[in-house]
Structures are given as structure tokens and as C-alpha cells.
């Protein structure tokens, strides 16, 4: 039996993720993992999904997006609201069902936001597109600052700028959304990573993925080949939004409250840093960078006050080193002897 090269690669990929999960789960069960690292397991999963989905936009589709945290916040809010409604409105007791439904609804609402934002945004190019995605991220955050939701015997009430609602307040403007029950679990985070990889890797190796990359590499040539540029750019953008929304729902449900300040511009930038440090267009790089950089501030705890300073310096030095022609050519010769073969998956918004 002969498998396609991409299929083999994908199987290896899923295998590695599963092995990583088993190792983590075993060390969690054995109790060898430190408490601070334990608390990082769900955020790591969330940031991996965020980074991989942003890589779909920045790396594969070649558009710089600075508002990815906006979709995450839409997902987190809808996750928090829907999970409360499922419990009190529909009386679903099973935690796992509620978690899955909340994550799905987080994905749906973030996807809707993605469509809404994508239609105007994807007409713009380059830095202008970047600044508009930034603007949308900030708009979503401002709107959430004056959004109020309440639940009264299973019925949802919503208002804008008016906290006096019947029943129990679920979303309380700047104070954020209250999570009724922390549903998020590490295995679910892992399942979300697998789902994300499944979607993204299949998309890249499909007809649509090739169309998206053709559009990235040369818009005019792709258009001349009959590719509907807007359609494929939208496809990548909305898929990324849906995945970010699902990750956001999981993230939100791992806290007791979710406030809009968690999804500031800094969060979007953080995810972008994962993508760029991991290698634009390189899904594996995103996963590794997201894991290391989420753990890094924890590992730097010994430096306490200086840790963010050290983080900043590490970031600058890594960028300088990876872009230094001498170090780069050395690295290429050592690590990637067949670089030209893998060149097809690289590139991205850098051009």
C-alpha cells in the first residue's frame, strides 16, 4: 500500500501530538508535574490552537491580522453564556456535553464575527489590512465593556449600557462574564488541538489550500488562473476565526470570570509572536513556539520581577539571530539540508 507523502506526514504529526498528550497525562497522574505547570496545561492547548489558526491567516493566506484575540473573546463570552443557558435553560447535566456545545457555539459566533469583519477587511491590502484587524479587535473589546447579559429562570436577557436586568447577571460590562462552572479540561484541550490540526492540515493539502497559497504568492497570477481570490481569503479567515472562537470558549471556561482585559491587543500580539518565532507558514513551528513561550514566563519565575524584561530581550535576540544572514545560512546547512524541498509551505505575509 502506498500512501501520499502528505498523508504520511500528517499521520506522523498526529502521532507526535498524541504521544505528547500521553506523556503529559501520565506525569499529571503520577503527580510529578509542578503545580504552576499544571495550571498552564489548558492555556498551552488554547495558545497552540490560537497560533495554528492565526498561522492559517498569516502564513498560508499571507494576510497580517492583528485582531485575533477579538475572535477569542467572542468565543469566550459566547461559551460562558451558552454554558450557563445549557445548565439552567435546557437542564443538561452532563459536563462534557455542555463543554462541547459551548465550544461549538463559541466557534459559530466567532465565525459569524469573522464573516462580518472579513467582508470589508479582505478588500484592503498589506499594512492597511493589519491596522483594520487591529481596529476590529479593539471595537469588539470596547463593545464588550458595555455589554450586559442576564439569565432569569432559563431565559437570556441582553442589554447595552444598562446593568439593571432581571435575574442573575452573567455578563457584567467591564467586570466581564461570570463562568457558572469551570468546565474546561486538559483532555478536551488536547482534542481541540487534534481537531485544529485535522482541519488546518487537510485544508492546506486540499484544492482550496493550494488556491489560498497561490493567492498569497501572487494575487494577480492567481486571479488570472480563475481563482476567486476573495472567496479563498474569506475561507482561510473565517476558518481561523472559528478555531479561535472554540479555543476562546475553552479558555473562558477554565476561569471563574472572563473580563475584556484578557483579550487586549497584547494577546493578539502574543499569538502573532508565536507564529513568527515558530516560522511563518510552519504549523509545527507554531505549536512548539506556543508551548515554549507559554511555559517560558513560568520558567523565568526565578527572575521574578525581571521575567518580562528577560522575555522581551529573548524575543529581540531571537529575531536578530534568526534574521542574521550568517547564522541563517549556518542553520540551513546544519538543520535543513533539503530546504528547497520544503520551500513550498513557507513564505507568507513577509513578501
Amino acid at each position, binding site marked *: 500500500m502506498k500512501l501520499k507523502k502528505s498523508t504520511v506526514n500528517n499521520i506522523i504529526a498526529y502521532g507526535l501530538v498524541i504521544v505528547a498528550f500521553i506523556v503529559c497525562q501520565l506525569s499529571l497522574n503520577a503527580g510529578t508535574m509542578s503545580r504552576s505547570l499544571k495550571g498552564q496545561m489548558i492555556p498551552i492547548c488554547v495558545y497552540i490552537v490560537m497560533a495554528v489558526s492565526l498561522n492559517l491567516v498569516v502564513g498560508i493566506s499571507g494576510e497580517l491580522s492583528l485582531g485575533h484575540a477579538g475572535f477569542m473573546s467572542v468565543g469566550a463570552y459566547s461559551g460562558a453564556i451558552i454554558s450557563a443557558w445549557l445548565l439552567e435553560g435546557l437542564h443538561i447535566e452532563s459536563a462534557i456535553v455542555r463543554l462541547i456545545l459551548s465550544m461549538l457555539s463559541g466557534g459559530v459566533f466567532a465565525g459569524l464575527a469573522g464573516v462580518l469583519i472579513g467582508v470589508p477587511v479582505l478588500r*484592503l491590502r498589506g499594512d492597511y489590512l493589519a491596522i483594520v484587524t487591529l481596529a476590529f479587535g479593539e471595537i469588539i473589546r470596547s463593545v464588550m465593556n458595555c455589554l450586559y447579559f442576564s439569565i432569569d429562570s432559563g431565559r437570556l436577557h441582553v442589554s447595552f449600557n444598562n446593568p439593571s436586568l432581571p435575574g442573575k447577571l452573567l455578563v457584567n460590562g467591564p467586570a466581564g462574564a461570570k463562568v457558572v462552572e469551570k468546565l474546561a479540561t486538559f483532555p478536551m484541550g488536547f482534542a481541540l488541538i487534534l481537531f485544529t490540526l485535522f482541519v488546518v492540515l487537510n485544508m492546506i493539502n486540499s484544492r482550496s489550500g493550494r488556491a489560498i497559497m497561490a493567492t498569497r504568492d501572487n494575487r494577480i497570477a492567481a486571479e488570472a488562473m480563475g481563482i476567486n481570490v476573495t472567496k479563498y481569503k474569506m475561507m482561510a479567515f473565517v476558518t481561523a476565526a472559528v478555531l479561535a472562537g472554540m479555543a476562546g470558549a475553552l479558555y473562558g471556561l477554565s476561569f471563574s470570570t472572563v473580563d475584556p482585559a484578557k483579550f487586549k491587543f497584547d494577546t493578539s500580539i502574543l499569538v*502573532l509572536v508565536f507564529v513568527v518565532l515558530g516560522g511563518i507558514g510552519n504549523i509545527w513551528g507554531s505549536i512548539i513556539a506556543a508551548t515554549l513561550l507559554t511555559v517560558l514566563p513560568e520558567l523565568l519565575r526565578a527572575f521574578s520581577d525581571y521575567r518580562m524584561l528577560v522575555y522581551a530581550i529573548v524575543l529581540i535576540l531571537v529575531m536578530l539571530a534568526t*534574521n542574521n544572514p550568517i547564522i541563517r545560512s549556518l542553520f540551513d546547512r546544519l538543520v535543513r539540508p533539503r530546504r528547497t524541498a520544503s520551500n513550498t509551505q513557507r513564505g507568507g505575509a513577509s513578501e
Partner: protein
Amino acid sequence: MVSFLRFLINGISLGSVYAIIALGYTMVYGIAKMLNFAHGDVIMVGAYIAFCAISYLALPPLVAILCAMAVCTVLGIIIEGLAYRPLRQASKLAVLITAIGVSYLLQNSALLIWSPNPKVFPTVLDFGSIRLFGGDLVITSQAIITIVANIIIMLGLTAFTGKTKMGKAMRAVSEDKGAAELMGINVNRTISVTFAIGSALAAIAGVLLCSAYPTLQPTTGSMPGIKAFTAAVFGGIGSIPGAMIGGLLLGIIEILGKAYISTELGDAIVFAVLIVVLLFKPAGLLGKPMREKV
């Protein structure tokens, strides 16, 4: 009507601060084609230096502003030389991430040096105020100074880029780096000078901003930085009059939006207007549309 005038003047004064910051963004973008995300933090450093000079060294305000300008100028040149110059040939995104790294570095250094507790910026620019309409409309000296400073900077920069040799070199480099180098222009030095001017302006903006909103924290610069950047894009990035118009309009929209529509949604209104403008004029108000060549 009087209250509208009051909001308008507040808006123009805030917009003038944005315009001064936006000038720094737009000049750096025009010449180095990079989004200098650390610019907002240079503002913060400038404000802290002025704060220290006034509160601890008891220097007169004007000297304090000059100190802040000097420190920021040096800081701008150092940042450019150490972090951005090695990346001249690198991808745009690599430079962007480095700029973000520099921004984190400045914020966290400030956090260590000056602690996260907000400092109250002393009133340095208070020389009384003008009262119109029987005292209903009060124009603070601070607003007047901000607006006047803005006009002087604007005229000065226009003259500088139009008439002096260095200004012409800047325009040449922003047009075509390679050709400028062939004409004997020292590209690296020109870019350094641009960063120096942008950073000195950031110091002025920092002092003006903190005299109007006197809480000073390590994160003071980030939001005005982002807004000034949107102002630069709004007016057409790379264009000096564009940055001016963009900054003023943004300030006015923000204050009027906060006053008449919703306080919490002020920022959202600003960004929504930006999006609408970009949809109809994709290169900003005064930007040159890009020609696409095959």
C-alpha cells in the same frame, strides 16, 4: 452650543497630541517602511524623564522638556541602531515583532525603574486660562500651548523636509532607497536622523499628553500610540499633512463621540470611523494610491 465648542476645543487639543505622535509614526513608516510599535513607549519614557526632571531635580518645565527630548532622541537612535538596523533586509514581520519586543523592553524597564504605581504628573503648562461667553467656555493655557506647539512642529517639519538638505535626503530615501544611495545619500544616517526627530517629537507629545491627563504609568504610551498610529493611517501613512489631519480628526471624533454617544464606546467609534474611511479611500485621506504592476 457652548458645550459643543468646549468639546471641540478639547478634541482639537487631544487631536494635536495625536498628530504630534502620528508625525513620528508617519515619518518612520515613510522612510523605513516599518510599523514602529515602540513609538508609544518612547512617549512614556519622555513623560517619565520630564516628570523626574521636574519633581526630583526641580528643573524649570522648559528645561525638563528639553531633557526629555534629548534622552528620547538618544533612545530613538540607540533603538534604531541596535534593533532595527540589523533587520534592514529582513521581512516586514520580523521587524514588526522586533519592534514589539522593544516595546515590551521599554515598558518593563520603566516598570522596574519607576514602579507600576501611577505617578501624578505635575502641572507644568498652567498660565491661567481664557474665559469666553461670560465664563461658560474655559480654554486652558494647556490646550492653547498644545495647539500652538502642534502648528509650530507642523510648519517646522514641512520646512525641514522641503528646504534642507537632510529633509530632501529623507524624501529621496523614502521614495527609493537604492537610487538614493547611488546619489550619494547616506541611507543609514538619514534613517537615524528620522528616528531621532520622531523620538524627540514623542517626548514633546509625552509631556503634552501627561499635562492633559496627569496619570503616568509604564503603559501610558500604548493606547495613545495605537490611536496615533491609526491617525497616521487615517490621514494616509507617509504623508506629513495627512498625519496632522488624521490626528486632529481622530481627537475631535473621540471627544465628541464620548460626549454625545457613549463614554465607553469612544474608542470603538474612533476605530469604526477609521474602518469606514479606509473602505472608501484605501490609502487614507491624503495617501497616494498604490499602483499595481504585474
